[in-house]
């Protein structure tokens, strides 16, 4: 069993209204030293695979095909065992 920790973030040039709203929210709470907030997704995908290489290939493909939208998002992931 493997677990992939997948991070999906908006591409840098893409507007992130959520991030902006959270930043404003933090500011109004008195966190005046916040420079920037970007909001993305974090997914934990547990999967069975022969070996690590196989798991890596699978997750890479999942990210490309479904977990991220290449038009507006980037992704990266780590793989942990167990």
């Amino acid at each position, binding site marked *: 069993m493997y677990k992939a920790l997948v991070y999906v973030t908006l591409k840098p*040039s893409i507007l992130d209204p959520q991030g902006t709203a959270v930043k404003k929210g933090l500011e109004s709470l008195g966190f005046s030293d916040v420079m920037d907030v970007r909001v993305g997704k974090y997914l934990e995908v547990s999967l069975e695979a022969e070996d690590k290489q196989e798991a890596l290939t699978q997750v890479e493909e999942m990210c490309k095909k479904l977990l991220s939208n290449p038009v*507006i998002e980037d992704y990266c992931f780590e793989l942990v065992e167990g």
Partner: protein
Amino acid sequence: MESKTDNKPWVELGLTDYEYEMIKGILSREPNYVELGMFSVMWSEHCSYKNSRPVLKTFPTKGAQVLQGPGENAGVIDIGDGLAVAFKVESHNHPSAIEPYQGAATGVGGIIRDVFTMGARPIALLNSLRFGSLSSARSRYLFNGVVSGIAGYGNCIGIPTVGGEVYFHPSYEGNPIVNAMCVGILEHKDLAKGVASGVGNPVMVVGAKTGRDGICGASFASEELNEASEEKRPAVQVGDPFMEKLLMEACLELIKTGYVVGMQDMGAAGLTSSSCEMASKGDTGIEMDVALIPRREKGMNPYEIMLSESQERMLVVPMKGKEDQVKSIFKKWGLDAVVVGIVTDDGILRIKEGEKVVAEIPAKALTEMCPVFEREAKMPEQLAEIQKCNLGELPEPTNYQKTFLDLLARPTIASKEWVYEQYDYMVGINTVVRPGADAAVVRVKGTKKGIALTIDCNSRYVYLNPYVGGKIAVSEAARNLVCTGAKPLGVTDCINFGNPEKPEIFWQFKEAARGIGEACRALNTPVTGGNVSFYNETKGEAVFPTPTVGMVGLIDDIEKVCTLSFKNQDDLIYLLGENRDELGGSEFLVMYHGLEAGMPPDLDLEKETSLQECTLKLIKEDLINSAHDCSEGGLSVALAECCLAGGMGAQIRLEESTLRPSSLLFGETQSRIIISVSRENADKVKAMAQSHSLPITKLGVAQGKSLVINGNSFTINLTLNEIEARYKGAIPCLMKG
């Protein structure tokens, strides 16, 4: 980008050699790269209408009710009591093909801005959508994304999405159609315009910060989609409905102060289009410093700033000396409002970066001097053959009841509840007639009035005969309004066609426009604005010609609003209008015979007018209890819709023996309305129809929980539950994939 060494940079930007020479002539010099970029977007089809202008001129645009015709951000129509309705439709087809959620969302955002820029408070949204077949995963993906994008934006900003239409056809597989329409209400005195007048008045940018979104989006929208589009696509614009809600409230508050001289939203071509259009309309110039424009990203150059299509921004020209008042209103809503320039008297749009002039172009060169083409028009060669297809000899269905059920489950005909349940159609508490009827009705608080709204187009009819198809689109829209008891007042249209440089496409366009114009004249519904989207093609194949028609009508007394549902046991059911043997272009013909051929149903504008007048009178005089237009699927489907809407069945007997049952049940003959009538009013209704020289036929009675349709050689007998299961279940079932 500026360092591009291509020796013909204008070609890269979508301008022809001929156009480049014209630009040199206008400026009496070579344009620099920023200027070239500005010309390229303003002279794109999307902004300049260079291929469509001569044809659009043929539309009727005048009428006593018209306060603002085409040329402004939205058309405006008088509804009495010092009130008016502003409305407009806009396409977002190409962005939606690339990123359906954001493409559709920003389309909604753009059309809302067009309406509140006029000083109107938006009160309703509609949309007209077309996708490929739902059996394709990509179509499902686009359909799902577009619907949630529309919902995401409209629901958040709090404007109810009250109506629309969805069709599925393979011609839209690669190039979906996404048209959004917005309707707002204003007091006459608050009517605002996109004009920069008053030399010395400040020019302000308000709303969101500028980023690198959608640079060259307008040019992108003016090209065919192909594989390279994926690569060429500009940074996708992301909509922020929350920001737009704040912007809308702030702008409406600002307009109430009376300090606004002119206001223009930044849509396609962003700052470039808004500034040159405002100056051009005001016969003035504008001088602007891009260094002052609030930016979201670092290191943006003048080219990027001028061409950015970042959403939720506006250009405002307030009276001189009122800058601080403007700023304080925007500050209250947490928004930027920055003076970036000034109105000048020299007719020049002068863009500076600090002290340095980076572009200097006569404003009118960008707006009015764009070359206009009268394209060649030629009827497609195969069309005559297709129209001539002999439909008289086709075999009849073997099982009418099964055919009827199959027809109800065709995605194009089936209930669109799956779509509109995702839209908040009630926010604002004005929605008196919800989606699912002929037209939506919203009340106007503080008056007894209601506004009826619809958007319509059967593009298969337009494909088979653009002239007749154009007439039908307008007539059906008006008929939908009339069924609620509303008098049709005006039109906004969205032309979604293929590449106009192809004579066959241009012919379709010209013919459809001729039909639209003629129908608008006959029904006294002037065109007050609209939008043209050409180049809707994939791999050289055009979509079905799709001129969607958005229409607005007025109900004097909201208490008298009429709906489609059968309401009382034992009410008599009549058909106004006549049944004819017209299967051409029908959904039945495609479904059962696999044919998209023949002539579409004919449309006689004189008959249509008397039908509409008669129906309106019947409703006004409280003589009928329901009214419903027959459209796709014909008489049988329309009857089913009347039954389902109120949960009341009907016993129908169709006597006409001269017609084939398939034509009678499923043919899509125009100018027909099903009404239900209390027995005591039957004679009066018949007399009224006769006085309008209108055929009226008794169909049966409302009763029970089944729909029974008997004819000489067929029987349909189904419970409403069985009918509903097919009608409502079809799309959810397909979407489960």
